[in-house]
């Protein structure tokens, strides 16, 4: 059987609330006898808790074992390939963690004076300049806490730009392949997302959008490469058309890892875009830490940028510049998620210009290798060179009754995390596969072997695939029931009565 899955001892684990016993401790805090007494009731008022919170009481080893065991029940990028599409890179270099933990970064107080945090301001300033160079923009704001907030910020600046000219166009054109966040960012800004269908080729043509472009268009939001992994070749003409009517072009930078070093969005007509640092600059994905979604923009939008901005004086010192009367204001407390900026900067410097270009080329090469090899067995959705990800479907298995969901479950038995399934919506039974720049040829071949084996199983004995997974700790979960009747809160089981105990 291809793949790397095997068997091993896995320890069962209760919830942490079910462990330990009353009074057990895993910490030892210094005595506070020499501190002045504090009256918590006076300090916290109505928020003061009368009785201690019912927190777990466990020793240090119990605590560690609990979380290590849980982590062993999970699949992680440090364990194996994670071909989830639309997520782009998954690499978190360990050196980033070293850099972000340097005391000079990790222990800064957010209220420290500019003079006391010159090093941190320099990192912010240099990261802004570096990102601006990569995407061909004039400026970058590091404030937004995630890509979605970056979109929101960018559109807020677009709105402020139009308002400053005494206009208030309301429409934002969004192709039907767009990320769901695009429409949400429009709604949050009081703008109306107007969807338009994309031609069968999977890319936006000028003729697709021309009927929608008028004076009421505030912007078009376009992802390049798009969510089906294709390069939008008409981006410049589309930008010209929208610009002619006074609109701006928002570039969703979610897939920038397929362009870095090869194409700069700012050079092909894009006015404003967000970076998702976890998708392009190695910061952890959701759950691995807070996010950071910087916004790059052209000079025409600079008056409206969020404040403060890390700036450099002529004498070489750095300061936080609040001087922007037309600014959309402050988006976040303090200066954004600084730890993510350190990680992204470390990666940027480690790779250098040639390294970033190499990462882009490898991401695209790996995706095309998978597209070509998987295409021998599976139906490839768009039969053309792809960028960083490729789309296949379950179409050739239609007669067997095996669906994309079954294939995803069976992949776990082969030791792979499933790809993104049933997205993009424009492809029926889609599997969106993104190998990323970091997987080796051997790993890619193992993945293809597994996919070919699953296809053969489906045709020979569909039940093998329909009943998967079989090697995982838990068998197939009832996802429908989980959504229809979610139980989100643990409650202590009732004390067994004497009768029940008998």
């Amino acid at each position, binding site marked *: 059987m291809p793949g790397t899955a095997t068997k091993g001892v896995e320890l069962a684990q209760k919830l942490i609330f079910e462990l330990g016993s009353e009074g057990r401790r895993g910490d030892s805090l210094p005595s506070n006898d020499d501190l002045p007494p504090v009256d918590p009731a006076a300090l916290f008022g109505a928020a003061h808790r009368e009785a201690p919170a019912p927190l777990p009481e466990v020793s240090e080893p119990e605590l560690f074992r609990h979380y290590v065991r849980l982590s062993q029940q999970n699949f992680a990028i440090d364990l194996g390939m994670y071909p989830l599409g639309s997520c782009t890179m998954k690499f978190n270099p360990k050196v980033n963690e070293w850099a972000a933990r340097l005391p000079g970064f990790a222990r800064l107080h957010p209220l420290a004076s500019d003079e006391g945090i010159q090093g941190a301001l320099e990192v912010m300033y240099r990261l802004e300049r570096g990102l601006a160079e990569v995407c061909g923009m004039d400026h970058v704001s590091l404030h937004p806490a995630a890509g979605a907030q970056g979109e929101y910020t960018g559109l807020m600046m677009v709105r402020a730009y139009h308002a400053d000219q005494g206009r208030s166009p309301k429409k934002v054109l969004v192709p039907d392949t767009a990320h769901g966040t695009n429409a949400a960012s429009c709604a949050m800004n009081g703008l109306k997302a107007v969807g338009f269908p994309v031609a069968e080729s999977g890319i936006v043509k000028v003729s697709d959008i021309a009927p929608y472009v008028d004076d009421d268009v505030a912007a078009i939001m376009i992802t390049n490469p798009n969510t089906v992994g294709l390069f939008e070749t008409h981006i410049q003409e589309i930008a010209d058309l929208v610009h002619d009517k006074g609109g701006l072009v928002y570039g969703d930078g979610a897939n920038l890892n397929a362009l870095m070093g090869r194409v700069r969005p700012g050079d092909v007509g894009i006015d404003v875009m967000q970076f998702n640092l976890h998708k392009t600059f190695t910061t952890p994905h959701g759950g691995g830490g807070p996010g950071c979604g910087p916004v790059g923009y052209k000079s025409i939008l600079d008056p409206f940028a969020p404040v403060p901005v890390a700036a450099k004086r002529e004498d070489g010192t750095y300061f936080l510049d609040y001087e922007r009367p037309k600014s959309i204001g402050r988006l976040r407390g303090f200066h954004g998620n600084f730890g993510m900026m350190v990680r992204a900067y470390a990666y940027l410097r480690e790779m250098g210009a040639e390294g970033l270009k190499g990462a882009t080329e490898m991401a695209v090469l790996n995706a095309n290798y998978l597209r070509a090899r998987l295409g021998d067995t599976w139906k490839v959705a768009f039969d053309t060179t792809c960028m960083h990800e490729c789309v296949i479907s379950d*179409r050739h298995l239609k007669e067997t009754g095996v669906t994309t*969901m079954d294939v995803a479950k069976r992949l776990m038995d082969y030791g792979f995390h499933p790809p993104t*399934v*049933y*997205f993009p*919506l424009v492809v*029926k039974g889609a599997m969106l596969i993104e190998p990323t720049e970091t997987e080796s040829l051997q790993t890619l071949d193992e993945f293809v072997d597994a996919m070919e084996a699953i296809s053969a199983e489906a045709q020979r004995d569909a039940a093998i695939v329909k009943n998967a997974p079989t090697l995982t700790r838990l068998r197939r979960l009832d*996802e*429908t029931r989980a*959504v*229809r009747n979610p139980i989100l809160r643990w409650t202590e089981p009732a004390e067994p009565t004497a009768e029940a105990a008998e």
Partner: protein
Amino acid sequence: MAQYPSDLRYTKDHEWARLLDDGIAEVGVTSYAVEQLGDVTLVDLPEAGSDVQAHERFGDIESVKTVSELFAPVSGEIVEVNDELEGSPELVNEAPYDKGWMVRIKMNDPAEFESLMEPPGYEDFVSKIE
């Protein structure tokens, strides 16, 4: 029961409409739509009293696989909403043409109903989808 009941009319967005008395059309999604969606987990419908336009979105349907928009087959005022779907979205899977109905629309123009596809036309349309 035929897969596409003969007394209903159909749209390319996979909604069906049934003509009730007084120019009211009952609306739901077809068994083909249900098959594509998989287990339905949420049906988000507008309040009774709101107006809808033919071919425009009037709600959303969510399944374990995806979220899709619901498009009105005809224009008019929504006079009744199937509140049972809020607690029991599985009715859409179990009985798409019956207990899984979604809204009842008082039609502005009954001719719109007549312009919808009849069962053979819809069946033909579905058979051509990959």
